Structure formats: structure tokens, C-alpha cells
């Protein structure tokens, strides 16, 4: 009896998944553990593992389709077995529209707290227009590419599956990658706006048109990630009574310590960011004011026993919040290394669910983009989020004298059902103390 493999639930907020590509084709022999396909969830692109031995008998859904959880994807069994897609579970893309109605997900995962810069919606990159882009390859077909071309494509951010190969047997060679780069087609993902075929005129050094529309009007289908962000932001702002508290912190001691440490760590190739210190400071402040490290659960409030501090990472088509687990037990150095690795994985869309779920508190930092002050949206079921602004040079009063200094403003958005303004103020004061005496973070 053939096994029908269905769209799995790959993250706790996932309702639909997009079959990015098949890694196997009909007739391939499969053993348990073989990766069958790549599936894009609302968070990441993940590989679909097969748990059975057999032959891939039938593929029900072609690459590119969006399917609800439970929709049949393929059948694995003995060669010759007759298989049909089970009735009642349509494998058509229409299934995607019927999002199962669910209560607010219990998950602590979240693409989405802060009002991070929303990227300009990117057109779907699938229709490859330019001369060197390829027609979609058959499901599961391996992309033939020379080692050199593969390396070049990776360096230039070109997706080999969209490049036509001119070598023997259709192999993609160096010239094909260079041609694809020149024509601007086949950029991987929707990473770089200039490369996605966006209609805006790329800046070419003076040839920018000063008239005409800003961009061509168009409607772009909502990506899985964007849809989840939208849903959860509405949920957050319509069900949580918000409280905002902000405080101005003297950033000079922190910047001085950071510079000093980075000079010392240069040899080890580690560079601590301001955000690494903020993550550590938050974990310590949560230890001092634990009421903020909590979650509203309707008839009870849960107070967490560890500070799992999430931080928002902006992606081109949304954002995601990887989590530094047990940040209260880690040094700034450890946090820095971990955050950097998580940030990179997030940008590559390779985060595993365990890496972006389970946060108990969240930090959103737009300081690196020069924003002095903003508010962020709580990422349920957390009961608070901290919005971190840039360290700004300004006149400050020290010992009754006006001198030049650097300050940063942080804003706590809190769930007023869980704690009140005074608790928020205590938390921010604790945070201010820690950041203004950064040596406290190092002990």
C-alpha cells in the first residue's frame, strides 16, 4: 500500500506551504531520510524528509503550488502500485485559500513585532523574462552546473535554477552566469531590488528620470510570510491594551566599553554590536523586574523562568525574530556570536523552527538605521517588546553643565493586562542602570 505524503506543519504558525521545488522525480528510489522537496513556510524554506523506503510513484502537486497543511504531495510505494490523490483533499492551489480557522496561535514564534522597515513589495521572481533566464525546470530535475559556475552564481547571488545552461547536456557554465548577471535576470530570491526586475529605474549615475510615475502600479500576491505578519499584527494591536513607556539613556559608557572590548577582541575576529549589549542588558533587567518576562493566558498570567530574548531581523519581504535562548546565563561575547549566527541564518531563510520560537521577550532595534525613537508592536504571547533607537549626539547636562554627549532612547511596549506603567518604569530604570554602567553586564 503506497504511502501518501502530505503537506506537513513545519512551523507552529504555518497554515499553508509553498512547494518550492522537488528534489526527487517520479520513479526515483527513496529511502527513509531522503529529502523529497523544498517547502517554503511562513518562516523559512525547509526540506521535506521522507520517512518511508520505496519508489516515488506519483507527484500530485507541481513545484510552485501553494498547499494547505494535509494536502497530498506525493505517493511513495512499490513500483507498479496504482496511486491516486486521495479524494476530499484537493491538491490544487485553491486549497491554500481555505485557511483553517484557528484560534490565535499559542506560539511564541513570530515574524513580526516591530514596525521594521517594510520592504517595497517585490514582484514574484518566477516569471523569468530576460534572455538568459530559463524556463522552469521539470520537477525534481537536478540543475547541471559546473563547479566554477556554481561558485560564481553563489558570489553574485544568482539562482542557478533560473539560468539556461549552454554547456553539454545543458550544463550551466561560467559564461551563462556572467550573461545572467549582465541581463539582471535570475537573481536568487527577491534579495536585491535592482535585480528582481522591479520596474523602478536602477540608479545608473545620473540617468535617473525626474518625471513619470514613481513605479508602475501593480498588485503583488501576498507572500506566506507577509500574510502571517499581517494577521499577527492585527491580532496584537486589536486584542492587547498597550502601554508605552520610554526613557533616555546615556550611551557614552556603553559605546566606550564596546570600543575597548572590540579592540581587544579584534584578534579573535569578534565584533560586539550595540545590540548584543542591549540583548544582555534586557536579560539582566528581566532578572531584576521579572514581571515583564511574562505572558497573558486569559485566566492566568505565566511568568517565565528564563529570559529567551528574541530580536527582530528585517528581511526583504518581512521580518523574523530569532531567539537567543537563556540569554540571562550567557556572556555578551556568547550572545554576540549566537546572535550573529542566527541573524545570518535568518537572512538566508534557513532558521529552524526551534530557533525562532520560544522567545519570552523581544527587542527591535532600528538604531543602526538612524531612527532615534519609535514604538514596536508586541509579539504575542510575549507581554512586552523593547524598541531601541539610535545613539544620538546631543547636548546633555552633567554636573549642572551643558556638555556634548550621546544618548539613546528606548521604548517599552507592554501588555497592560499583565503589568502596569510602574512595572514598565522599573524595568526601564533597571535597563538604564545596566547600560549606563556597562561593567555590570560583564560580571
Amino acid at each position, binding site marked *: 500500500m503506497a504511502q501518501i505524503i502530505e503537506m506537513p506543519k513545519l512551523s507552529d504558525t504555518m497554515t499553508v506551504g509553498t512547494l518550492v521545488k522537488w528534489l526527487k522525480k517520479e520513479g526515483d528510489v527513496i529511502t527513509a531520510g531522503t529529502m523529497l522537496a523544498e517547502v517554503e513556510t511562513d518562516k523559512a524554506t525547509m526540506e521535506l524528509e521522507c520517512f518511508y523506503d520505496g519508489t516515488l510513484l506519483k507527484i500530485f502537486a507541481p513545484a510552485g503550488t501553494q498547499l494547505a497543511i494535509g494536502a497530498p504531495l506525493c505517493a511513495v510505494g512499490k513500483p507498479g502500485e496504482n496511486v491516486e490523490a486521495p479524494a476530499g483533499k484537493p491538491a490544487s492551489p485553491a486549497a491554500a485559500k481555505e485557511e483553517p480557522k484557528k484560534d490565535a496561535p499559542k506560539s511564541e514564534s513570530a515574524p513580526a513585532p516591530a514596525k521594521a522597515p517594510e520592504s517595497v513589495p517585490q514582484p514574484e521572481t518566477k516569471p523569468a523574462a530576460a534572455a538568459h533566464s530559463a524556463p522552469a525546470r521539470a520537477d525534481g530535475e537536478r540543475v547541471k552546473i*559546473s*563547479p*566554477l*559556475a*556554481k*561558485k560564481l552564481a553563489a558570489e553574485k547571488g544568482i539562482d542557478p535554477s533560473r539560468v539556461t545552461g549552454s*554547456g*553539454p547536456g545543458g*550544463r550551466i557554465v*561560467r559564461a551563462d552566469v556572467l550573461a545572467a548577471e549582465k541581463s539582471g535576470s535570475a537573481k536568487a530570491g527577491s534579495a536585491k531590488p535592482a535585480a528582481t526586475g522591479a520596474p523602478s529605474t536602477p540608479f545608473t549615475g545620473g540617468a535617473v528620470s525626474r518625471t513619470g510615475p514613481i513605479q508602475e502600479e501593480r498588485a503583488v500576491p501576498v507572500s506566506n510570510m507577509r500574510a502571517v505578519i499581517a494577521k499577527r499584527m492585527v491580532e496584537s494591536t486589536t486584542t492587547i491594551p498597550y502601554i508605552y513607556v520610554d526613557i533616555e539613556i546615556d550611551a557614552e559608557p556603553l559605546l566606550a566599553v564596546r570600543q575597548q572590548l572590540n579592540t581587544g577582541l579584534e584578534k579573535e575576529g569578534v565584533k560586539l554590536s550595540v545590540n548584543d549589549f542591549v540583548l544582555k542588558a534586557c536579560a539582566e533587567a528581566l532578572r531584576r523586574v521579572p514581571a515583564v518576562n511574562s505572558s497573558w493566558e486569559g485566566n492566568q498570567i505565566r511568568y517565565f523562568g528564563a529570559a529567551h530574548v528574541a530580536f527582530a531581523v528585517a528581511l526583504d519581504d518581512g521580518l523574523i525574530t530569532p531567539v537567543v535562548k537563556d540569554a540571562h546565563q550567557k556572556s555578551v561575547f556568547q550572545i554576540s556570536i549566537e546572535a550573529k549566527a542566527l541573524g545570518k541564518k535568518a537572512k538566508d531563510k534557513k532558521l529552524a523552527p526551534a530557533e525562532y520560537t520560544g522567545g519570552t521577550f523581544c527587542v527591535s532595534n532600528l538604531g543602526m538605521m538612524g531612527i532615534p525613537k519609535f514604538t514596536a508592536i508586541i509579539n504575542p504571547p510575549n507581554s512586552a517588546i523593547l524598541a531601541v533607537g539610535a545613539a544620538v549626539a546631543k547636548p546633555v547636562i552633567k554636573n549642572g553643565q551643558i556638555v556634548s554627549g550621546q544618548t539613546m532612547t528606548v521604548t517599552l511596549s507592554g501588555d497592560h493586562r499583565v503589568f502596569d506603567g510602574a512595572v514598565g518604569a522599573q524595568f526601564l530604570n533597571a535597563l538604564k542602570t545596566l547600560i549606563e554602567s556597562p561593567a555590570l553586564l560583564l560580571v
Partner: protein
Amino acid sequence: MPQITYREAIRHALADELTRDENVVVLGEEVANFHGAYKVTEGLLEKFGPKRIVDTPISEAGFIGMGVGASMLGIRPVMELMFWSFYSVAFDQILNNAANVRYMSGGQICCPIVIRGPANGGTNVGATHSHTPENVLANHPGVKVVVPSTAYDAKGLLKSAIRDNDPVFFLENTILYGEKGEVPDEEYLIPLGKADVKREGTDLTIVTYGRSVIHSLKAAEVLEKEHDISVEIVDLRTIRPLDIDTVLASVKKTNRVLIVEEQKPFASVGSQLSHMIQREAFDHLDGPIHRLATVDAPAIYSPPVEVEQLPNPNRIIKAAIEAVA
């Protein structure tokens, strides 16, 4: 610069070294009175006398064994094999004794012997006279294997070989003996283990040695003119030690490789090169490593068929076009 033949260049190297070092002696079948089967040693007997230019019986195992023994005692013998194809008769002397003695004696005894003579096919002398033993020889740690492609290289490399303290197997291509090239009269040495870029190019690297270098240079002209393919030619000159750095530098420049050798393809020098290139330059390859060798059959006696069995410019052109496809 005077133009002399490959044969004369080898003779000049021998004469230079016989003059420079009285421990150098030349031994082999007919090297003295008959001036060598291929006339390489012409005039040496008259100049250096019968103590240093010695005819031996037709007994490779015997006289190679004698040379190996003499070299262990400080003589620097240059042994001529009438054909390298007969080396197997003296396999024990060459590869068990000469190649191993330094290791077996803990470095106390070295074996500064040079064994030289004509190798390869192309002269229509049949399967037993057309061997290309460089891969078998180079398989043994402790030895050096040299295959010069030009008169200039032959002289400079042989002089280095005679001065080397390890056994050096010097494989001359029979057909190249009459090829002329510019060779300076003055002293020069070409170090063993240094490849030479014989031609610069951008689209394809041909890694080769021996007579195939000459064929490849002719093919490269045609490829450039008629097919717009710019070929770089790396002449290994020494099979062991193998100058992989020069090969890799060229591969990283052109990203495509064709190995041309007069060996049979199975477990050849080209097989080893192919392995080393893919391992060290995998990310620089824009296509599989191509290889052109002698057709995998014993050397064919029929002259027109043997030409097609060996690498030749036409076969190289065809293989090069495939390699850049």
C-alpha cells in the same frame, strides 16, 4: 643562438658533464663503437676514451645492475637503454634496488644513476618496442622521472639529472631526436620539478609533456585561428616531482583542462593529474577534466593506424573543442 637537434642537445649535455666531473661515465649497448642505436653518443668514445664510454652486452638486468652498484660507490653512471621498452628486464635493479636504496640504508647510500634512452611509439616498431613507462616509474617513491619535449629542455634537464643524487629516469622521445631547436652553447641548468608554460592562452589549459607538447602547439595554432579558442600549454617536463602549482595556476586562469599524453589511458600520469586538479581546483573548473591518451591497445604496427592511435594534432583539436563545449 645555434639551432641543433634534440639528439645533439643530449650529446652536448653528456659531453659537458663528462668534462665537468670525472666520475661521470656512459654505459650501454653500442654506445661506444657504434655511437648508440640512435647516434646520441656519437664522438664521445673518441673524446673521453674507453674507460668512460663503455659498450655493454645485451643484458639489461646485468649492466643496469652494475650501474646501480657503481652509483652506490660514488660513480655517476649514465646508462643508455636501447629502448626504454626493455626496462622491465631490469625491473628489480631499477625499481627495487635503485629506487629503494636510500630509504633502505637509512640515507647512508644514495644512487646517483641516470637511466636514459628512447621511449614511446610512433616509429612503427611494434608493441614490444613502444612502451611509455613513465607512470610505472613515477609510481615509485625515491625516483625522478623526466620527459623533455624540446632540444633546449633536453640539454638543461639532462645536466640537472646527472648532478642529482637520486635515480633519474630520462625518457627521450624517439621521434623528437631529429627535431631542431635553439640551444645556447653556454652552461645552463633546468631544475627538475619545474613545469614550463610553452604557450599562453585564456580558454583552455592543455597539460602535457614530451612529444605531445609539439602536437599541442600545432593544434593550438589551428584552434586559435579557426575556432577562436585560446589555448595555454603547460609542459610538465618532469613527471616526478610533479609541478602541480604551475598546472593549477593555469587551470585557475582558463577554468578548462585537457590532459594530453602518449600513455595508455588506464592509471596513467594523466589519471594522477586529473585527480590532483579536481581536488585542488574543483571550484575553478567550468567543465569536466578532459583527457586524450593513446588508444587503449598495444602499439599497432601498421604505420597509418599507429598515427591515429597516438595523440596527434587532429585528435587534440577535436578533444580541445569538446573540452571547451
